[in-house]
């Protein structure tokens, strides 16, 4: 499994600090093809910081990040997106003034070729391109079951729906790696089950259900999931990495993590004698 070609993202000795606060300390891990990797840890453990480093928001002071063998440490976020890294945010970060449809269309940005002149003239090329991308976007909308809110302004949508739109927007980039930052935070059981189902469906690919949309047809074979809900994580993750106070304290299959004494200590606290 740990064949060189299998590693999608390799993180080496990553350290990030804000002034005196050490957010990440010497974290090394591998994110592989064909796996859903969960990153868990108590609040403030550095999970989101790790995602922010990968997608280029934070500039780590030490260490390197490689994506498909290419160094992407301190990359500009829009370039990371072009390489095929898509993400969602813990606190939904949608384009609130746009409709669901336009939010997802906006994510097709890197895949479209219009410039401002052809956009302004519209007829012909831009029109064709808009329609071609609209097809894929409609497939994504269909897949996420958000057809009724297609033309609603996302600022007005309820929380669960907005989370879903955000997932759709990340999918629309046609990413090679999907980074999901707490996709189920603040949801009830039913909504969590929906999202878990979507994640698994995205991972497995939908094959001929969506023949024209590569991202849905072939799926995204590398998903990183930051999540608090242990039940979900244990169920859908292939591997789990545990962070605590910026350090990686454990890594392994759900079964291994469940019984790891350090993890239990980090979550439940240690008994002092």
């Amino acid at each position: 499994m740990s064949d060189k070609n299998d590693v999608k993202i390799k993180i080496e000795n990553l350290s990030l600090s804000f002034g005196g606060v050490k957010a990440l300390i010497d974290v090394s891990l591998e994110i592989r093809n064909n796996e859903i990797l969960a990153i868990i840890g108590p609040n403030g453990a550095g999970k989101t910081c790790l995602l922010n480093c990968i997608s280029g928001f934070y500039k780590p002071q030490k260490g390197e990040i490689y994506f498909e063998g290419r160094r992407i440490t301190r990359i500009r976020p829009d370039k990371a997106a072009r390489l095929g890294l898509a993400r969602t945010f813990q606190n939904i970060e949608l384009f609130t003034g746009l409709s669901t449809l336009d939010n997802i269309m906006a994510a097709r940005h890197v895949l479209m070729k219009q410039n401002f002149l052809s956009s302004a003239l519209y007829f012909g090329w831009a029109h064709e391109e808009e329609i071609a991308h609209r097809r894929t976007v409609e497939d994504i909308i269909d897949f996420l079951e958000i057809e009724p809110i297609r033309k609603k302004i996302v600022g007005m949508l309820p929380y669960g729906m907005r989370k879903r739109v955000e997932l759709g927007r990340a999918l629309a980039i046609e990413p090679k790696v999907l980074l999901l930052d707490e996709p189920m935070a603040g949801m009830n059981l039913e909504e969590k089950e929906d999202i878990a189902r979507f994640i698994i469906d995205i991972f497995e690919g939908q094959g001929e259900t969506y023949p024209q949309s590569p991202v849905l047809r072939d799926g995204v074979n590398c998903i990183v999931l930051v999540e608090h809900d242990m039940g979900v994580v244990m169920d859908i993750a292939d591997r789990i990495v545990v962070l605590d106070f910026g350090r990686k304290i454990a890594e392994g299959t759900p079964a291994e993590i469940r019984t790891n004494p350090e993890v239990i200590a980090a979550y439940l606290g240690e008994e002092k004698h």
Partner: protein
Amino acid sequence: MSLPSGTRNYTYAQDMAILRTKTHWALFIGLLVLLMAAPLYLSNYWLGVANLIGITLIAAIGLNILTGYCGQLSIGHAGFIAVGAYTAAVLTNRLELPFLVGLISGGLTAGAIGLIFGLPSVRVKGFYLAITTIAAQFIIIWVINHWSVTGGFVGIKVPYASIGGFVFRTETSQFYLIATIAALCTFFAKNLARTRVGRAFIAIRDNDLAAEVMGINLLYYKLLAFFIGCFMAGIAGALLAHWIGFLNAEQFSLTESILYIGMIIIGGLGTTVGPIFGVIFIRLLQQILTVQVVPFLERTFTMMPSGFATGVTPMLFGLVIILFLILEPRGLAHRWALLKSAYRLWPFSY
């Protein structure tokens, strides 16, 4: 956007079209005919007002792209209009180049200057950016006043616009020139707003963090918004120069810049119809105040010292704008949307 009951879209092209029903087409063609026939029913004076509205509209559309769609607040718009106006004036007056060369150069020069003053937008946003764009206003006007080429405080004369031997001498001919360019600008702005570039602009306005993660190059698109916005300001400036025939830096004051912000807010930020409504509203209000209200006040309050009415009008003007912002903060475009849905749903309320 919903459709009238019973109307269905069967293709994405239908769904994306601007004019989608026969009524839309009828209204659109009717409006075009009404616009193009304006010289038939408007007096020369009101045709002049229409020309001013057209020129203002072109600049306001530019500001709407920059501020309304892309969210980059600019309080130097009159400065950029001045750049376009003086470029056209210098090229056509001193170098005796054709009108079209002056027009395009006016737009491009204003766009280029806009790029320079847009650079701070990479680092600062909102009010902070607004302050840096005020710098544009003052620096540009200072340069115009102190540079010999621009005629300094004396001003500069501008010849009539002319294309291929035809001289736009009358208000009527200028009306057709200005209306055509204003219509083209509206068309471009609408297309921009509904396609890739427009979505990138709105994405930056609504959430620059997420926009960047979605692969939108912030530097490029912010500067592009400045370029397009200032290019249109420059085009408007060039038209203004040829329309008035004489330029003086006082025509491009800070008040005018702020008025432009007022227009797009009153019209409705980030909408296509917004600038149209806002510009018509403000320019007509100015006209009505100076032509109707001032003489009325002078006649009614004879015991007041002379000139008091001219002093009162700015206050009335401000009052109307304040009332407007309190009563309809979402702009006239929102009222227009309500009206349209009321028409569509009639006789039901929703």
